[in-house]
């Protein structure tokens, strides 16, 4: 894993959102969002469904386009310049709720596709790297299988490995465990914790409070397209500042 602190040339701010606004037609989905993520920071984003969490992190790698404000990733501003978008997507990995593995390719081919076609790495080398990461997510022996032959937890770990094969500097997670059966959540969280410990810059949309408490540097609470509260996990869970945060916490903690 690339240790973020070792590279001094890059700016210390990995992701920066300045007054970001986005609309779906009339619907104002992101309202003046401001956020700075430092290199190596782990941020957990939570909030009620429909509050704009997915939209916000999808703007960071241009799966969604923001209409006002500035997004700077790794020192590069996201605008309509395709070169910038390409460059940012190479540096930013993303893990989806529904894994989105390519069902017509084997696990190994899933992991090698982008390194070979985007980074133009020879197949042998791409496969060696892929096996390394599959080893780290603890499924090297499934490399020749197709995604459809794996359990949900295994698929999500492959999806994480697939992203890591591009050697990203920043990883985005959009509710990576919410489509999983309870017994598989732990294996995926363990993989993510390991990744966090290796120094990766991470933005995770998740409601897994245990994960947030273990690895997060700060927790962001979003509601109705706004960042309502940003705090350390301890502060956020024990002393939420806002009414809406309190309500939300009481709901997800099941009290």
């Amino acid at each position: 894993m690339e240790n973020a602190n070792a590279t001094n040339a890059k700016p210390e701010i990995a992701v920066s959102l300045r007054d970001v606004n986005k609309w779906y037609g009339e619907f104002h989905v992101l309202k003046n969002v401001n956020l700075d993520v430092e290199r190596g920071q782990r941020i957990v984003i939570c909030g009620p469904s429909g509050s704009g969490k997915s939209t916000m992190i999808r703007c960071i790698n241009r799966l969604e386009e923001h209409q006002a404000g500035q997004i700077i990733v790794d020192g590069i501003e996201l605008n309509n310049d395709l070169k910038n978008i390409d460059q940012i997507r190479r540096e930013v990995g993303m893990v989806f709720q529904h894994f989105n593995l390519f069902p017509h390719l084997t696990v190994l081919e899933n992991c090698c596709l982008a390194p070979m076609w985007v980074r133009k790495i020879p197949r042998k080398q791409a496969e060696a790297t892929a096996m390394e990461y599959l080893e780290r997510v603890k499924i090297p022996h499934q490399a020749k299988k197709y995604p459809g032959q794996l359990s949900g937890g295994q698929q999500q770990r492959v999806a994480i490995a697939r992203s890591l094969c591009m050697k990203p500097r920043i990883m985005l997670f959009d509710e990576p465990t919410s489509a999983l059966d309870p017994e598989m959540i732990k294996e995926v969280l363990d993989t993510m914790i390991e990744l966090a410990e290796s120094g990766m810059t991470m933005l995770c949309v998740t409601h897994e409070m245990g994960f947030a408490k273990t690895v997060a540097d700060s927790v962001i609470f979003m509601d109705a397209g706004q960042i309502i509260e940003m705090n350390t996990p301890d502060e956020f869970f024990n002393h939420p500042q806002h009414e809406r945060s309190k309500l939300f916490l009481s709901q997800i903690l099941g009290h």
Partner: protein
Amino acid sequence: MTDPNLSATPQTLSTVPSKPSFWNDPQKRALVFQVLLVIGIGILLWFIFSNTLHNLEKRGIRTGFDFLSRPAGFGISQTLIPYTEASTFGRTFFVGLLNTLLVAGLGIIFATILGFAVGIARLSTNWLISRIALVFIETIRNIPPLLQILFWYRAILPLLPGPKDSMSLAELFYLHKRGLTIPAPLTEPAFVWTLWAVLGALVLAFLIARWAKYRRESTGQQFPVFWTVLVVIIGLPTLVFFLTGSPLNWDIPALRGFNFQGGLTVIPELTALLLALSIYTAAFIAEIVRSGIQSVYKGQTEAASALGLRPNRTLQLVVIPQAMRVIIPQLTSQYLNLTKNTSLGVAIGYPDLVNVFAGTTLNQTGQAVEIIFMTMLVYLVISLVISMFMNWYNKRMALVER
């Protein structure tokens, strides 16, 4: 536990459950019914067959396939193999078959190219392009194919001028009511080297593509495969052609009186039938391609984009391979439809199998049973061959599921 009966019970439970009786075993039951069905159909066919033969004999109608070696005595307007009025009915059969295969083969190629283009245009983000594609699809799909054939043959082609006032291109190509007249190639024996060169160039192109893939995978470097292959395929035969002293002459068509002499004339029946069937089938293929591409879950494109793949690569590597699973089975049935629809050429006198064999030959020999049987068999075989090929292709594309 000392009771022998009790201790015996677990043992009987752990053994394989007792076999069902013959009649209760679903597999055996199914087998028996199938055997009975085959026997029943066999008896029925034999009954029909022997009865027909008996009736035909009683009425003094000839039976058997002797007629195939008798001279046909009629001409055919388009023959891909040498054929005269003195040729046999057997040869008539092959002339008709080749004419059918010509329309089916060319039609499938044109319909596929046009269909994929329109289908992708239908998904274009450009409003006008996608609207035009939509109107094309909806109009063409909803007009009966026979009417479309008549449209081209009766309404459009007659608008063309007569041979005397042909639209001509460089005095070489002439488009007129009676077809498209083009220079006919006259080959000298040495031309065979050029043909070998074409074959050689194809093999070379294949090897280059293989090597480029190998190199891309082993070093990551891209190679301009398309352009190299293009140069090889065009360049090598051209070079050989001139080195062997240009062993090809052209029979240039020339107007003599009211008609052309020399050259090669593509008959209007072929043009009309090909246009109508290609366009008609393309509309269906476009719709199949559209729904196939749309059936690929949006998350697939998003995952590919997030990994940094460009849209065209995403289409090539992620979307199309998955869409093909949905497209191929439906494409097969369109190919079969097109092949069967070639028999509509009868309406405008295109000399296909149904026309020259199940039509003229049948009228002249009166041997309807044999002729219809042979003709039906031909369509059945063509359809089976297409289906088998497409099934084989589909298997290669199938997804492995748990």
